[in-house]
């Protein structure tokens, strides 16, 4: 009996998910956003190639010049990773005409003067100048009686390599850029698909369809199905965009894809799923508190604030991914989805760290599903002004007892219900405006202290400001949400 019941709620959740995918998948807004994202990514990858014509340069030669000059220019250019095409001109005038028409980049007149159309291209200038010097030195050596063999050994190239230093050993600035972009994409996807869940919940509530649905299915199946459906749609959109990026890279050919390993990408995907599940649950719960679609923005506030703050925290930590602060934010479940992928990409984690953080996040998701499910269930049928978190929590059914509605209240479930009732009439702390102000002041104080501590610990003022301001913004939003519209809780007649 219990088995078939849970089977049925899974079946219903899957139907809800399929509806989300179908209805949203064919909405014009969604298709437009998919096309826009593909276009943006393709443009980002292809346009730089088109603008920096990293292709061959044209060098013109005219007048008397050492025989080996053309070959040496080519060699020197190749050493500097430039391909050159050499053109010979019978007269200075014809060579200069070619420069003016833009057919060649530089004219080497008589092996001693370089003529450019505008400002010299420094890379090319260096290569050509080096070639001229080399040829001249060889010529003088021959004149001075030094054998070509001796000369060659004297002039053998000294290998000089250059390294771009990042903040972390083994990772360069390109890796840091890749990490920032990757974390930014995670932030974007989690907040976009998370707020889709929020507006979806709010739409169902404001159109009142939710009562028809919940008459035949548990609230948890409805929320779970919605989160799953939008999540799958999100994954599909990400996959399509990634595919477009891959095609663009292959077609454009010469783009240097940041060397991001497959394991890092796999972990980023895992953290997208974890972060999405966590925030979608929060967004869905917050959505159920409002009653009109206009409430969406204010309801989303705290969750979006936490997300953005954790992005900036992760951004600030990129230079010291192994520090204690970075470790803390990559383990704290609310910030982990933003902070952990970056640490993995920077090679700052032991193998067990992402696994442990993922488990902590999963446990948090489970807890949020239980808490959020209870709030959602009680708030979703409440009509009238937006509900406070506390009122929703207080009028909530005991989880899992929904089906006992018909079997009569068992003593075990009746007791907490009565307890809720008794506390219903009491005025509580946040209803009193003066103590509310006091609470805000205390929270602001804690926030400033936290900011100063963070600044001192990390020796970075910006991190301190982010931590302090973030704490204040988020907690005050929560207080507002918690205590909003104190009045008799959900009272349908």
């Amino acid at each position, binding site marked *: 009996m219990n088995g078939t019941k849970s089977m049925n709620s899974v079946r219903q959740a899957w139907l809800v998910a399929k509806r989300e995918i179908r209805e949203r998948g064919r909405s014009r807004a969604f298709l437009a956003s998919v096309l826009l994202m593909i276009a943006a990514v393709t443009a980002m990858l292809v346009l730089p190639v088109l603008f920096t014509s990293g292709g061959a340069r044209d060098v013109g030669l005219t007048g008397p010049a050492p025989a080996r000059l053309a070959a040496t220019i080519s060699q020197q250019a190749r050493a500097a990773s430039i391909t050159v095409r050499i053109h010979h001109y019978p007269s200075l005038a014809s060579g200069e005409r070619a420069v003016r028409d833009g057919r060649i980049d530089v004219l080497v007149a008589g092996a001693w003067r370089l003529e450019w159309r505008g400002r010299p291209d420094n890379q090319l200038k260096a290569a050509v100048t080096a070639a001229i010097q080399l040829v001249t030195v060889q010529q003088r050596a021959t004149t001075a009686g030094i054998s070509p063999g001796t000369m060659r050994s004297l002039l053998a190239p000294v290998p000089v390599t250059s390294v771009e230093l990042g903040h972390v050993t083994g990772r360069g600035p390109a890796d840091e850029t890749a990490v920032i972009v990757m974390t930014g994409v995670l932030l974007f996807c989690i907040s976009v698909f998370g707020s889709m869940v929020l507006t979806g919940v709010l739409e169902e509530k404001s159109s009142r369809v939710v009562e028809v649905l919940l008459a*035949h299915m548990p609230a948890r199946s409805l929320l779970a199905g919605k989160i799953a459906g939008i999540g799958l749609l999100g994954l599909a959109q990400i996959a399509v965009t990634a595919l477009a990026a891959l095609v663009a890279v292959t077609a454009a050919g010469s783009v240097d894809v940041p060397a991001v390993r497959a394991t890092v990408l796999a972990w980023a995907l895992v953290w997208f799923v974890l972060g999405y599940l966590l925030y979608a649950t929060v967004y869905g719960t917050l959505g159920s508190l409002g009653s009109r679609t206009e409430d969406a923005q204010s309801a989303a506030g705290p969750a979006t604030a936490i997300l953005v703050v954790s992005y900036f925290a992760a951004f600030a930590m990129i230079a010291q991914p192994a520090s204690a602060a970075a470790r803390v934010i990559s383990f704290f479940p609310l910030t982990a989805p933003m902070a952990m992928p970056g640490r993995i990409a920077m090679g700052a984690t032991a193998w067990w760290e992402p696994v442990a953080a993922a488990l902590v996040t999963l446990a948090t998701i489970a807890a949020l599903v239980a808490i959020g499910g209870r709030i959602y269930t009680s708030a979703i049928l409440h009509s009238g002004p937006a509900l406070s978190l506390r009122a929703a929590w207080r009028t909530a059914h005991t989880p899992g007892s929904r089906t006992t509605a018909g079997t009569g209240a068992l003593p075990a479930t009746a007791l907490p219900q009565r307890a809720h009732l008794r506390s219903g009439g009491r005025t509580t702390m946040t209803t009193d405006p003066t103590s509310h102000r006091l609470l805000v002041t205390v929270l602001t104080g804690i926030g400033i202290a936290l900011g100063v501590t963070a600044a001192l610990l990390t020796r970075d003022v910006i991190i301190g400001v982010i931590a302090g301001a973030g704490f204040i913004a988020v907690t005050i939003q929560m207080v507002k949400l918690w205590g909003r519209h104190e009045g008799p809780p959900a009272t349908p007649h």
Partner: protein
Amino acid sequence: MLSFDGATKRFGLLTALDRCTFTARAGRLTGFLGPNGAGKTTAMRAVFGLVELDDGTVRWQGRPVSAAERERFGYMPEERGLYPRMRVRDQLVYLSRLYGRGTRDATACVDAWLERLGLAGRASERLDRLSHGNQQRVQLIAALVNEPELLVLDEPFSGLDPIAISAMSELLSDQAAQGATVLFSSHQLDLVEDLCQDVVIIEHGRIVLAGDLNDLRATVPQRFIDIRYQGPPPDWRRLAPAALIEASDGHARLRVERGIDMAALLAALPGGGAGLVSFTYQPPTLQELFREAVAA
């Protein structure tokens, strides 16, 4: 058969349902009456577990209602609502599937209902493109789509035009004739009187009257007499045990006790009832029953 057995629900200090006990029988239309805020919506929500009772039980065929039973229930909430931007047919098939049908079965059933209510041509339009009346019809199909054994409708007649009212009446009677249990709330007492075999009257969360409408009317001690006459109005005070309720030119309505001496009453009329055009002796109308029950 749907039965409420001591159903009690409190919201804070307000008792929305106070030990409600009544039944709605199969094959009959049961009208659920009561002033605004009396507890009708809460009681109907309790059938679907949308309201968790503090005490008491709602039973279907003698067993407490569970999720499996609700698959065979149809519900039309007071605040109508469907997905405004979803296509009519997709929407109804989706609901039918949620209630436990297979895709093909659900589609066939939805198409049959759309055909029957004259919406077949609008099936692939978005709901919000339909007129108000047609949206109401779609909402009704949403309640009927799985051929429910129990139909619970909260104010199904509100906002309907006279033609839609008679169509709805016919449909509900039809459902009852096919063996369904139909419980609906309404403020239109004359309509309920014409349509329903049973009524339940609720006031401040308490059931004040419930049962077969004819039985209820018969057991009430009051009777009403309508008199139409020609000529000058008689002196009503002389008809001693009768109380005058309303009088207009050529018509009067009197309240008397059951078992009154009719011959004496007629004799008391001026001229022994010479100007009498018509005389009816009847139990109270539902309107009167309701007023009596709610005022008590």
